């Protein structure tokens, strides 16, 4: 019986080993992405967006007469697993390019692998400034994600318009929270020096009890607050802050980064969402003042995903792929060296508008949507009222 089991396992391993060989003429793009665990809630739709772009371009005959093939693998949200998967894609699946990774750790982890194998790598989600800082930048690395600088400065621009003087911050105490808050504070001081930072709270990432932080902050009597608590952390914070009258005390002048305005966050919080605060999101399905291209994109996305109110994440996968393919087209080549050169300074017409890859830091001018969160009778969750796409170009160095 045991030997039989072993034999069966051996046979299974052998048949798994014989992977399906792709058409040699296909352009292969590897996508390491979080597809398991809690992060899959964001990784899955990001992959869907990339797949939608691939399907659309293949239906039109592909690029340079060749079809695209997307090979995705689960990075499990782990930096070392992302490295392993990226290596496997390059060395075994022989992908031509890598588009992917999710967390602030995965992007910087895969970057050296792309460099040593001379493969163009486009990061669609990783925000940390350090990823494309001069000491880490290399010719094959590009980013279509927004950055901590852009996110912090966008929030500062928003708060600067409010009739307030006393500003506070609350952010998780780790690299992302610190970077985005530092960018916010520095930009606010620059554009409106009369504003005063009266308090800064740093709960640890994954804090379960925000009450002491909330009370300490209210004691300093801020008139507006910037936060970068995200995902489940933001949900926990909201559920504890509302009963303490936190949002009333600051007159709902709460500007929340970390995709707090995304459909994912809104659905997770449900009826408890504090209406009147400001949130951000990579994409919104209700951009009524948006261009026709965006409305069309949302309609196609509805069809592709079958969701009446689609996720905010497909946009990042879609745009990353679109930028890469425009690079291939401009280079008229699928060699990473040529594509890397073509991507410098390229302008791409995406569903959210023109995206330009800066030749200086290889990053796009990717802003996010910001808006006041309201209840709309058409939806069962809070949505942005008149979402605005904040183009960061005017306040980038």
């Amino acid at each position, binding site marked *: 019986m045991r030997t039989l089991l072993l034999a069966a396992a051996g046979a299974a391993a052998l048949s798994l*080993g014989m992977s399906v060989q792709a058409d040699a003429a296909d352009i292969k793009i590897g996508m390491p992405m979080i597809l*398991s665990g809690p992060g899959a809630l964001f990784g899955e739709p990001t992959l869907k967006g990339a797949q939608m772009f691939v399907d659309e371009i293949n239906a039109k005959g592909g690029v340079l007469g060749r079809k695209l093939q997307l090979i995705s693998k689960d990075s499990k949200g782990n*930096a*070392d697993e992302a490295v392993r998967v990226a290596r496997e894609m390059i060395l*075994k699946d022989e992908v031509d390019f890598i588009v992917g990774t999710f967390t602030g750790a995965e992007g910087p982890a895969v970057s*050296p692998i792309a460099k040593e194998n001379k493969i163009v790598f486009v990061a669609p989600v990783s925000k940390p400034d350090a990823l494309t800082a001069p000491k880490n930048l290399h010719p094959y690395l590009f980013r279509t994600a927004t950055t901590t600088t852009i996110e912090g400065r966008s929030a500062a621009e928003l708060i600067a318009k409010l009739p307030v003087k006393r500003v506070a911050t609350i952010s998780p105490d780790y*690299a992302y929270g610190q970077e985005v808050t530092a960018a916010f504070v520095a930009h606010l001081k620059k554009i409106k020096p009369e504003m005063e930072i009266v308090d800064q709270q740093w709960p640890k990432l994954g804090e379960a009890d925000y009450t002491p932080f909330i009370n300490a902050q209210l004691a300093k009597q801020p008139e507006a607050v910037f936060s970068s608590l995200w995902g489940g952390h933001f949900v926990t914070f909201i559920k504890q802050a509302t009963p303490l009258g936190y949002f009333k005390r600051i007159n709902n002048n709460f500007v929340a980064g970390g995709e707090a305005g995304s459909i994912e966050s809104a659905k997770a919080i449900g009826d408890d969402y504090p209406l009147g605060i400001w949130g951000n999101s990579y994409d919104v399905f209700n951009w009524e003042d948006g261009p026709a291209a965006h409305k069309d994109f949302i309609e196609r996305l509805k069809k592709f995903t079958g969701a009446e109110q689609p996720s905010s994440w497909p946009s990042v996968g879609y745009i990353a792929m679109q930028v890469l393919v425009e690079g291939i087209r401009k280079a008229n080549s699928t060699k990473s060296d040529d594509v890397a050169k073509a991507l410098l300074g390229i302008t791409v017409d995406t569903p959210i508008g023109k995206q330009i890859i800066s030749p200086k830091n290889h990053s796009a001018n990717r802003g996010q949507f910001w808006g006041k969160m309201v209840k709309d009778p058409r939806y069962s969750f809070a949505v942005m009222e008149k979402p605005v796409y904040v183009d960061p170009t005017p306040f980038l160095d």
Partner: protein
Amino acid sequence: MTTRLARTVPWMTVAFVAALLIPVVGTRFYTSVATDVLILGLFATSLNLLLGTTGLVSFGHAAYFAIGAYVCAIAMKTYDVPFALAFPLAGVASGVAALVFGFFCVRLTKIYFAMLTLAFAQIVWAICFKWNDVTGGEQGFNNVPYPDLGWMEALPGLASMRTGELYFYLTLVLVSLCLYILRRITNSPFGRILTTIRENPERAEFVGIDVRRFELAAFVIAGLFAGLAGALFGIFNRGVFPDFGYWAKSAEVLIMVILGGMGQFFGPLVGAFTLVALNQQITSYTEYWPLVLGLLLIILLYAFPAGILGTAADLVKALRGRRNA
């Protein structure tokens, strides 16, 4: 005939020579997988000195792996220390950390010992996660340089090799050396005392063995070799991350040991190979890897509690027994 063959052939030398050929006959991908297996195999073997030999269940062995990885990477990148110094330094740092943590851990037994090792590991993880200026925090310590391998090209047959392949050879030699030392330790009188402690700590105490001191010594040696494995992995991975010290990593290495068989010296190495190969194959087809791993563990623990190598050894013994009878 077969039994004599099994005894007289120096299997370890054969395995070493076979491994030397991997970059020559295999692809770059297989060389990379082999490097991965060797390093994790050393990591798992170091844990087995505690688990299989001494009978101590550590839930926090990843802490020493992480300390070794960070110390070696930071020494090499931030302070330009050559690998020849940074590598032993990583072992020493992990050994010292194991001495400090172990001092408290060996005062407890069974589940309390396990929980305390876990607690210390979480402290290490938290420090790596928060100390942005030194460790790079959540974003990790990236772009760890490869050691200078130029001298290796002067060796016969290695002139045209790429860095990744040269690094494989360096890893092969260093891991083999570490495994040799660990095997000598396991089979020494010192190792026998550890086994005595595993079998019956009360009795060991009774015959005059200072159980705590021997346990602490085993803890330090295990931590030291885990640190050396971490140092090699940080370079191989081109970056060191707080996750290296997270409890999930400790669980992973524990699974490797149990999968391969903790009663055999080379069991953990087989376990590392199996886990890496399965992970690579299964994640290529499905994102339900944790489910597959869970099922596999259930089957293993019920059907083959001695692990892969343990079961194989039992099988060989049974066959021999039948032939002799």
